């Protein structure tokens, strides 16, 4: 980047919030996925005014801009793949207002999601989206990836809670979308367009989030199954019985073994699957619901069902699930973490397909996930230094996506497209579908400076390359 542009940048953000030294720039060259891309400069804006001026400057000189939250993206979202300027949004975090009367939160993009959870719960309210990274990731990142976690089953994903946004467009204009009302049908729903757009359509500088009253109580059970198929049937039976659990998690045998080896907590390593079911709501109602879930599990062939008697036992049951991520990372230095999602009735089929892929490519593939909403997390554990195995993993990833799409599902339920899934977009959307998306991008961002190199495949790119 030429000196005079840096000089102009310095007139917008002070020295201590702008980095050009090599070590500093390398510190913004990664996220939680793959690849290393060195930006030319990093800035830390603190308000929308600064963001507007930076975007205008970038537009004038056609410099790529890469918004970045906590860089926990698993799909390459914030990677500065074409150099340019990284906008570190983590310090833009001054506002976190809970409006109790209107059941709203008004929040700056750099606020950590868990802080919203905490502030809302202090006054008896609840912000449901709960990606497991919520104590690290920023709300700006969550909105851009439309993130969610176990609670997505009952409460939906981030997009269900965003009702208004302040956005700096790729032309450097400040616009507001939506507002403070839950109902709003004035014109196109730009809020929904921005949510999940992975920073390719603009930079979110403030958001209005909808809150709901906090459920009074919750109950949890853990059921183990000799056969994976049976656990799948238990899941569908519970969901069709009129109960909508707050969360429904599944772990396969490889996953159970991994956790038990990492930190023994008494899991049955000989079982093919276990499921965790949580219901929340009025104490009397959920008492009955959890009993019903227990009965269904036994009917479907569960070998054992444990219902937590108190909060301590509940945490114990969840421990197993929470250990999954660290446990499988211990199995090898590189984890390729997918989140292909299928209609929930297709979970048993998807599990079967994953089994076939595992044996076909001879890979260490473990599966867990939010079974209730069909969002599975097949994880390939490998070592990026082992080039040959990485090649097999690349092939397997392609087949996982193909399987999900064939079963009527999607490439990504949570983690977004970024760089890693871009090559498969056409497979799911078709040529015309992808082209409509591209037209939206071109209309919003005529100079292609906003997070370029993401979501859309490069010409001729049909599969991911990890080595």
């Amino acid at each position: 980047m030429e000196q005079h542009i840096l000089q102009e940048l310095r007139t917008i953000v002070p020295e201590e919030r702008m980095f050009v030294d090599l070590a500093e720039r390398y510190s913004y060259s990664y996220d939680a996925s793959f690849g290393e891309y060195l930006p030319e400069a990093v800035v830390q804006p603190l308000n929308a005014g600064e963001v507007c001026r930076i975007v205008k400057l970038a537009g004038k000189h056609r410099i790529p801009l890469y918004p970045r939250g906590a860089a926990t993206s698993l799909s390459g979202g914030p990677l500065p793949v074409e150099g340019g300027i990284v906008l570190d949004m983590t310090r833009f975090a001054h506002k976190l207002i809970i409006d109790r009367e209107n059941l709203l939160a008004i929040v700056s993009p750099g606020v950590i999601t868990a802080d919203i959870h905490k502030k809302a719960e202090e006054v008896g309210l609840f912000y449901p989206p709960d990606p497991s990274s919520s104590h690290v990731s920023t709300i700006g990142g969550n909105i851009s990836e439309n993130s969610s976690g176990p609670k997505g089953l009952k409460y939906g994903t981030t997009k269900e809670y965003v009702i208004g946004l302040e956005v700096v467009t790729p032309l450097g204009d400040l616009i507001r979308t939506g507002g403070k009302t839950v109902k709003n049908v004035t014109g196109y729903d730009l809020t929904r367009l921005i949510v999940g757009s992975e920073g390719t359509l603009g930079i979110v500088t403030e958001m209005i989030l909808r809150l709901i009253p906090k459920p009074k109580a919750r109950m949890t059970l853990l059921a183990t199954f000799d056969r994976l198929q049976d656990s799948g049937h238990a899941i569908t039976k519970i969901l069709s019985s009129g109960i909508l659990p707050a969360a429904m998690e599944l772990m396969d045998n490889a996953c159970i073994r991994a956790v038990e080896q990492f930190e023994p907590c008494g899991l049955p390593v000989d079982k093919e699957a276990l499921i965790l079911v949580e219901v929340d709501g009025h104490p009397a109602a959920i008492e009955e619901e959890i009993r019903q879930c227990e009965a269904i599990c036994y009917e479907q062939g569960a070998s054992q069902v444990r219902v937590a008697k108190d909060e301590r036992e509940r945490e114990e049951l969840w421990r197993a699930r929470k250990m999954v991520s660290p446990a499988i990372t211990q199995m090898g230095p590189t984890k390729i973490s997918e989140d292909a999602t299928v209609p929930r009735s297709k979970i048993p089929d998807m599990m079967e397909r994953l089994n076939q892929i595992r044996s076909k490519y001879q890979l260490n593939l473990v599966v867990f996930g939010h079974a209730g909403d069909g969002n599975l997390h097949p994880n390939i554990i490998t070592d990026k230094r082992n080039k040959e195995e990485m090649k097999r993993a690349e092939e397997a990833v392609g087949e996982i996506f193909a399987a999900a799409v064939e079963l009527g599902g999607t490439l990504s339920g949570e983690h977004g497209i970024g760089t890693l899934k871009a090559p498969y977009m056409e497979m799911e959307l078709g040529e015309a579908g992808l082209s409509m998306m591209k037209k939206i991008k071109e209309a919003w961002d005529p100079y292609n400076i906003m997070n370029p190199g993401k979501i859309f495949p490069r010409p001729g790119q049909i599969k991911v390359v990890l080595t």
Partner: protein
Amino acid sequence: MDKTGPQQKLFDSAHDEANRCVQCGYCLPACPTYISMGKESASPRGRINLVKLAAEGKIDIADDLAQPIDLCLGCRACEVACPVGVPYGHILESAKEAIADRQAQRQPSAAGRAAAPAGQQSAAARTPSSRKERWPDRLKRLAMTQLFPYPGRLRAAGNMLWLYQKSGLGRLLRRTKLLSGLSEPMAAFEQVLPAVEPPHKRYAWGSVFPAKGEKKARVAFFAGCMMDAMMSRTNRLTIELLTLVGCEVVVPGRQTCCGALHAHQGLKAQAQELAKANIAAFEQSGADLYINNAGGCGAMLHEYGDLLAADEAWAERARHFSEKSKDVTEILHQYGPLPFTRERHGVITYQDSCHLRNVQGVRTPPRELLKSIPGATFVEMEGCDQCCASGGIYNLLHFRESMNILDAKMNKANVTKADTIVTTNPGCLLQMRLGVERKAENREMEALHIVDVLAEACGLK
């Protein structure tokens, strides 16, 4: 860039470990320097990545890696937060060693120096004219090579300090602002040094103190050089408390500095020599357990096993030594209850010593002991598990960065309305005393070592 010397060594010792980091960012909210400085290079994830890049030769060890590493407190909260167990402590020490080696290469005249350019001066430090040693570096080097390995000299320094405090020289210097002219941090700490005991009250090296009542164990006391020189009263009280719960206490005569400062500054070989001297001294004592009362030293003793793992002749002995090393609170808690004779009124809060909490994993015993004091109210402070930014001598070398973190901590301490902030490490104690001086809202607030608080409640003087 050459593939020899410090870079190759760094690659061999740290690249695999750094590669285990999956860059998930789970350590970010735990890191005090990331929170206060707000940039990725001041975070554990950032530092690990830079070590990896330096090992690969993509950045320079001295020009690019030194500063971010230098700004790390070494509190190791990141290790506890990391879901995949990245051994940050090892990575950090390998990096420090590489930096020290590279700087020694560049400045042959000052070989063996532990100097790394400090935060603000780093850009300047690269220009030849500023290659002259700055005072903090000089102080650090002198202390490390001339003072800490020699307990006798340190004791003498402690006695000098007593004389200085008693003679009124201190007051004079303070009034005339002689010291603050020398340096702001030195002046700040001079004000908060605890009163030193007169030389005749010091316990003697090599003595044995019998257990009171039934003897439950024979323990050897690790005096710690800072504690011994500046806070010998706390050491004396530690011995007395141990005897009260049934320990026969010996003070091995040949013990020396634990080597933590050396290891943290990249002087691994010197740390290893000190470790061997201590192992030999304590083995001779015939004690069942080795007790210390300084979280920072304790962590080093706890890691002798790792430090000497590659040394065949010593590995086994070092491992045993580490297994026997315990913090005084663990033993008082285990062999207690203490025979309290007095009530203590007011609110007590506790600031964890990072090295006690994060490296030795000791969290409950100090809290339980404080709660057991008759009459006292114990209130947990938000962020008590986060470093106070004393970090060995970090607060001297990076005064401004350290004070930013300390001031934020004191705001949380004020919320507890505590009269007493308790710590378990001399460095933390000085830092908290400075914090009280700077920011305490409660005029009565004081910072004390846990042993002093317990001893007072037991009627010891």
